[in-house]
């Protein structure tokens, strides 16, 4: 990619960015604004999940634990303290600290195990946190959860939209930087062939823990944003469905691609929203999970690389075949001369 000529993909990103920047001013539907904000928030969550699944090849079923920690941290801070910026800052600090420590501990204890054991253990830890949130009623109000007030700036739908957008873009840039760094390259290698990475002299466990901590902390941020957008939090933020949503978004959008999770999050959020509207037409649409299940199976069977992944592969193939025909032409030229 040269600096003077942008690739089609960069142009697409710029157009998309401009569209998202002006969208709140041309659109006056609150529902759309909220929907877009949700997409941004879940994009962040899915991107963090993708770092594990797509780049490092780690399957986690408990990624919701970080999401939930962030959500509860902001909720409790806002409720127990007054809803000001100090509280928000405190919640952010608590989230970063808790997520980093938890992901580090979970990583150090379980990442040395084989992948499916790790998946099961993360599921258990997320379940443990969910039970804690349910039982620690004085702090969390149990299963029912609680509503809380937030600073005015975060209450305003338009400013929240922009805050979420900025966070999404920042996360995207951070991911880009991270995956192109020497560490990011090792993570991809671990996904490809763990044993070989070890025999090259890298300590695989350390890299997996790094990935887990980065992914966990970012997921915590998405949890904060999620709770702020609802101004409500209950135990469902720890539910396995949250992790599965991220899994679905990542796989449909494209595992191991930077833009995939964003596209996946957009598709799934829009589909959920659209299908719920269609529930008036036919009852089956109310059970959108059934439809999702079907789509999911089809995607895994026919587009295992997801939308972005398949597009990239197609582009790569085209480039190669172009090169091959060029080579052939040159060779035949050489032969005739």
């Amino acid at each position: 990619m040269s600096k003077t000529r942008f690739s089609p993909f960069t142009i697409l990103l710029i157009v998309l960015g401009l569209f998202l920047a002006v969208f709140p001013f041309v659109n006056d539907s609150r529902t759309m604004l909220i929907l877009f904000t949700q997409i941004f928030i879940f994009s962040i969550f899915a991107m963090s999940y993708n770092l594990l699944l797509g780049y490092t090849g780690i399957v986690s079923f408990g990624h919701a634990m970080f999401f939930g920690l962030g959500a509860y941290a902001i909720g409790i801070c806002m409720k127990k303290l007054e809803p000001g910026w100090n509280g928000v800052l405190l919640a952010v600090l608590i989230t970063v600290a808790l997520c980093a420590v938890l992901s580090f501990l979970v990583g150090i204890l379980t990442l040395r195990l084989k992948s499916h054991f790790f998946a099961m253990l993360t599921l258990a830890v997320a379940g443990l946190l969910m039970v804690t949130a349910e039982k620690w009623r004085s702090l969390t109000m149990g299963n029912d959860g609680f509503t809380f007030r937030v600073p005015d700036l975060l209450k305003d739908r338009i400013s929240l939209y922009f805050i979420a957008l900025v966070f999404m873009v920042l996360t995207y840039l951070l991911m880009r930087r991270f995956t192109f760094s020497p560490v990011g390259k090792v993570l991809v290698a671990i996904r490809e062939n763990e044993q070989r990475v070890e025999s090259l002299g890298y300590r695989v466990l350390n890299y997996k823990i790094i990935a887990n901590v980065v992914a966990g902390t970012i997921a915590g941020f998405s949890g904060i944003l999620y709770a702020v957008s609802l101004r409500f939090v209950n135990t469902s933020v720890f539910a396995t469905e949250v992790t599965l949503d991220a899994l679905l978004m990542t796989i449909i959008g494209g595992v191991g691609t930077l833009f995939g999770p964003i596209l996946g999050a957009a598709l799934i959020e829009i589909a959920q929203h659209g299908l719920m509207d269609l529930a008036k037409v036919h009852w089956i649409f109310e059970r959108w999970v059934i439809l999702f299940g079907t789509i999911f199976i089809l995607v895994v069977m026919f587009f295992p690389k997801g939308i972005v992944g398949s597009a990239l592969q197609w582009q790569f193939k085209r480039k190669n075949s172009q090169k091959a025909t060029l080579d052939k032409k040159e060779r035949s030229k050489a032969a005739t001369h």
Partner: protein
Amino acid sequence: MNSVSVEIEKNKLKSIIGPNGAGKTTFFNLLSGQLKPTNGKIFFKGEDVTRMNPTYRTRKGIGRSFQITNVFPNLTCFENVRLAVQSQAGVRYRMLSHFKKYKDMERKAYELLELVYLGEKAMELAINLAHGEKRKLEIAMLLALETELLLLDEPTAGMSLEEVPKILDVIKKIKEDGNRTILLIEHKMDMVLDLSDSIMVLFNGKLLADGDPEEIMNNDQVQSAYLGGLYDDAS
């Protein structure tokens, strides 16, 4: 493996031969740390490495290639080698600097690919390479680690006959550099004889003979246990 005791001389090429199941690869696994011995000790440069895991042994200077092709399939050849160079350069935990910043590493990766005649394939995915090319890629990765000891497990296994001389060429080049100790498992006797400074023969997990090439060729025990049989197989 059963009470095999050998000393491997520095900067020499030693070949290991023996029939299938003799324990050649097991011997390598013990040296590189994939397996731990039930008893006995392994010393490397005077240091006891018996309990050391593979990662640390690599850092100490024991590099190995595998008999089964073992590369990163969905990465480009260049990236495969670059990762090895990166490890050798000690760039381990840089999280926010772009990998392209490390020009020296890129240059070295290209040089190594050229050395094993893969320069033109640098941007191809490793999965799309022919078998022999994968083996060459693996040797490039191994060289990138700049280990003093190279363990080559049948580098020519499964290669077409036209490809074999090129690999021999590569190994010869490394040997002539003179600063590496090479241990080679190989089935192609002519190649072994030409290249080796010494040969050790394994049979049923035991050390049958150890000496310079002529000595081994003239050893009756070796002839009957192994060489005769091999030539029958090969023809």
